[in-house]
């Protein structure tokens, strides 16, 4: 076979076909085959490695194996948050044949709005096409059956067994625990902690779930499965085991938490109970609450709308985010400041229902008569504190308030803590570019005006005062529960005053705490006499904070929203306490009401301590300051101190 024939075929007499033409065809064929060989060379020799990678990606699918999230326990190992087995449905984008046909079918079978499926597809636009994207979690048996029955028509659907979060019912401890949900686009883009997360990853979205997400979530594994073009699994290559998340033991005491939840039932507001020796939070309640289970599995639009439009802000953890005037609970700070500055010891004010300062009459709720520092606290006499505030001046007041951690983050290990406000001359200058008016100081003296605090700040400040000035960083997780590097990173990421000691003369904090013990003891004018706990050295301070000015109040129809907020901060025992409780009952109409709520929690705590101690030590309320140093106030032997005082007849709510 030669490429060019030298002959010219003699066909018939006049029929000739130039040999060159057939040779030309031969050359053309050779050229064509050479082009094809070159194409093969380019793909199979030069580009083989690249195509092999693509071939693997085509047929090998990494199926995520989600790590079971760590469980959450209370301080005694009782479970608060558990996991349960669940089935989730995933979508393989590259397997969708005809979105206009498939999506409506999927929507009806999985009971999802088609818009939601489209939104999910849009959200995962940038993700690798061969990786499954989460479509619906915790699908029902019917939905599972739908996926199985439509395996041929909808090869893009697949189900994975997973572990889901199971939270306590009825929003129990919801704000403190938080909830989990898919990492948001905003978190992925703006928060470096989520730099290595991918869309669709489930993360803690609030509470300790968010703070301790890195410990709780563990490390997801994966299975490399071999699939055919229909996405059907035809074999597997290997797997990377998931590392379960770390279990977390909280400082919460389930019994105390239960008592707090019960006390706050049906009310709006917040309650926090803390061990001031350590900063361990024993209970934390915010009302109204929400159901975290709704967030971690199938947040419905109606539930989300309900939460968003609720004027009482169910998602807000009011123990650390409500920034409100503390009312008369602020008088504790005022008392310490007055005593430390030697201005309160000899102050004796005649209260005839108020006093005039700078040409303006400031009212007191009652005519208390002669009031000194000893009865000013149980009476909660405004006239006394107006006078004291006037003497101290705003900057001195601010100095003490700040020393006890008001107006700054406590550093609690929860996201989005609010700082509150402690006004001063500098503060007025910085924020309002004006000077501070002396008349404003008078209102601040009784915890009104510009001063705002959070319940946790007040609990911590009270614990600090009662413990002789030693204040700890409030926290929900025992430090030994976390790796050291995590603990130090955590401390850095939650700025606050942390551990600190405020030097207070023992005689002064003795005076203040004795005064607070009077608040809950029977007696005329004692503002929380009705909250007296028989046999428990329960002390505290009420606060009734106006939410609307007197003048404005006179003009309104006096609806629920104008009812004052009811505060109470209490502790047991009165000095060097084992528990401090702060209660904010929004529109609760008087601190005495909140005192009753706090007393339930303190009662539950003390009763439990007694039961545990089994050798109840009955002790007189110490008249002298405890002997241990303020630097080390934690004395286990003083875990519970109980008075022998019998309950007196409940006194009516006194004026504050």
């Amino acid at each position, binding site marked *: 076979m030669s*490429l060019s024939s030298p002959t010219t075929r003699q066909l018939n007499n006049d029929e000739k076909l130039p040999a060159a033409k057939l040779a030309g065809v031969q050359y053309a064929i*050779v050229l064509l085959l050479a082009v094809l060989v070159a194409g*093969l060379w380019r793909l199979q020799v030069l580009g083989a490695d690249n195509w092999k990678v693509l*071939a693997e990606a*085509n047929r090998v699918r990494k199926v995520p194996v989600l790590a079971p999230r760590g469980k959450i326990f209370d301080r005694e190992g009782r479970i608060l948050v558990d996991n349960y087995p669940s089935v989730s449905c995933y979508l393989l984008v590259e397997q969708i044949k005809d979105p206009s046909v498939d999506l409506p079918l999927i929507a009806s079978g999985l009971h999802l709005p088609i818009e939601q499926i489209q939104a999910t597809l849009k959200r995962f636009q940038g993700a690798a096409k061969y990786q499954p994207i989460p479509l619906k979690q915790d699908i029902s048996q019917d939905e599972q059956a739908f996926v199985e029955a439509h395996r041929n028509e909808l090869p893009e659907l697949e189900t994975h067994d997973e572990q889901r979060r199971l939270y306590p019912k009825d929003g129990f401890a919801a704000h403190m625990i938080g909830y989990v949900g898919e990492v948001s686009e905003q978190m992925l883009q703006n928060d470096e902690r989520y730099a290595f997360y991918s869309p669709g990853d489930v993360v803690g979205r609030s509470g300790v779930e968010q703070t301790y997400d890195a410990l709780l979530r563990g490390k997801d594994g994966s299975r490399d499965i071999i699939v055919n073009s229909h996405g059907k699994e035809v074999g597997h290559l290997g797997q990377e085991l998931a590392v379960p998340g770390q279990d977390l033991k909280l400082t919460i005491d389930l019994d105390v938490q239960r008592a707090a939840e019960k006390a706050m039932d049906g009310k709006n507001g917040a309650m926090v109970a803390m061990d001031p020796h350590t900063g361990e939070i024993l209970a934390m309640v915010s009302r109204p609450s929400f159901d975290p289970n709704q967030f971690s599995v199938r947040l419905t639009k109606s539930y989300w709308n309900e939460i968003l439009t609720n004027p009482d802000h169910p998602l807000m953890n009011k123990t650390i985010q409500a920034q409100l005037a503390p009312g008369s609970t602020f008088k504790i700070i005022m008392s310490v400041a007055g005593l430390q500055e030697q201005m309160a010891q000899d102050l004796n004010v005649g209260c005839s229902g108020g006093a005039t300062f700078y040409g303006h009459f400031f009212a007191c709720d009652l005519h208390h008569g002669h009031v000194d520092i000893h009865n000013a606290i149980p009476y909660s006499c405004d006239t006394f504190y107006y006078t004291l505030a006037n003497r101290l001046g705003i900057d001195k007041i601010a100095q003490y308030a700040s020393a006890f951690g008001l107006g700054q983050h406590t550093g609690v290990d929860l996201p989005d803590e609010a700082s509150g406000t402690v006004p001063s001359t500098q503060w007025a200058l910085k924020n309002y570019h004006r000077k501070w008016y002396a008349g404003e100081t008078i209102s601040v003296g009784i915890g009104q005006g510009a001063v705002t605090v959070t319940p946790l700040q007040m609990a911590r400040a009270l614990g600090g005062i009662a413990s002789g000035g030693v204040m700890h960083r409030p926290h929900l997780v025992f430090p030994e529960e976390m790796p050291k590097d995590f603990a130090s990173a955590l401390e850095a990421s939650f700025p606050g005053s942390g551990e600190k000691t405020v030097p207070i003369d023992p005689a002064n904090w003795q005076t203040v705490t004795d005064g607070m013990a009077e608040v809950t003891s029977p007696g005329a004018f004692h503002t929380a006499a009705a909250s007296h706990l028989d046999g428990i050295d329960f002390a505290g301070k009420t606060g009734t904070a106006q939410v609307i000015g007197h003048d404005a109040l006179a003009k309104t129809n006096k609806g629920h929203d104008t009812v004052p907020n009811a505060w109470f901060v209490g502790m047991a025992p009165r000095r060097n306490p084992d528990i401090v409780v702060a209660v904010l009952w929004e529109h609760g109409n008087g601190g005495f009401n909140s005192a009753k709520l706090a007393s339930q929690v303190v009662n539950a705590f003390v009763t439990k301590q007694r039961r545990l101690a089994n050798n109840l030590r009955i002790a007189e309320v110490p008249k002298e300051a405890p002997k241990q140093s303020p630097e080390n106030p934690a004395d286990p032997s003083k875990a519970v101190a109980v008075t022998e005082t019998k309950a007196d007849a409940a006194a009516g709510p006194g004026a504050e």
Partner: protein
Amino acid sequence: MTRFSSFRDFDWILLGFVSLLSLVSVLEIRSATAQTKFHGFDHKQIGFLLIGVVLMFFMSLIDYHRLIDIARSAYMISVAALVAVLVIGTKHLGARRWIKFPGGVHFQPSEWVKLVLIVMLARYFWGMAGRELSWRDVWKAFALVCVPMLLVLKQPDLGTALTYLPVLIMGLFLGGIRFKQAGILIVGLLLVVGVAWNTGKLLKPYQKARLTSFMNPDDDPKGSGYQIRQSLIAVGSGGVWGKGANHGTQTQGDFLPIPYTDFIFAALCEEHGFIGALGVLLLYFLILMRLIQNAQTASDLPGTLIIMGIVAVIVFQIAVNIGMVLGLMPVTGIPLPLLSYGGSSILFTFLSLGIVMNIRMRRFVN
């Protein structure tokens, strides 16, 4: 007239190459369908091949001059059959390509028109032998091809319609078209195609998408670009030595579309690599050269023209099919001769070979 020799004059070497390629076809179809629902197509292919061989021997017995004699009538019947397809044909997957006969037999006239056109054009250009083609001659040849071609396009069956063109081009080339005429025709053709493309009268949108997707398969990886992309992955990942028979992950995983028909070369490339593909191309080269040699030794011009017409169709199918598999050409659904599964393709090829044998056996001038 030429004298019938005997089967000793059969081109056994050509038959050897063809048999080798047929064997490769059966083995590759067997491998490509091993784990799919098309399992067992290798047996059917063997059946087609056996029928093809019988037809080839049968075809070699009828003097090809008889075929030339009846070409005109056959052409008329073919055109009528194509019209009949459009009127009474069976519709399947949106295309009307078959005429259904009692007993469930489906007949696809467009496939056989190829052979009729080859003989018809050979007859036509034989008549023109010894002189340069006039424009009138060229237009007549064009008309002869365009009538069935437009009817097939109407079905629509772009792939088959396009296979008529190389017969015309080969005929014009060998028949004596002048350079100037060829130049004008090429420019004119480009203009017509350009206008038809832009006005959308010639091709349906999905046909256009298929024709352009090979340039950017990633633009629509799930749609028109899917086949090209999967084909490239299969071919490329085969590397130099291939993944081995039955071990082509893209082929066996059903990623490669129809790996036993249009994309069988991709399956072969994946499982047997560059070396295997080179072997197949070498076989094609040998077959084509052998065919051209038979054309050179044909006893008369029509014999040469018929064989070269067959060569044109085979080369065109090889170029378009392998070019498609390698991402150099659009996806047109043209089978690879002797390798792709399918009765029509196999029977056409063996009937063609029968004519080639026929011409070879009668190569000695009286």
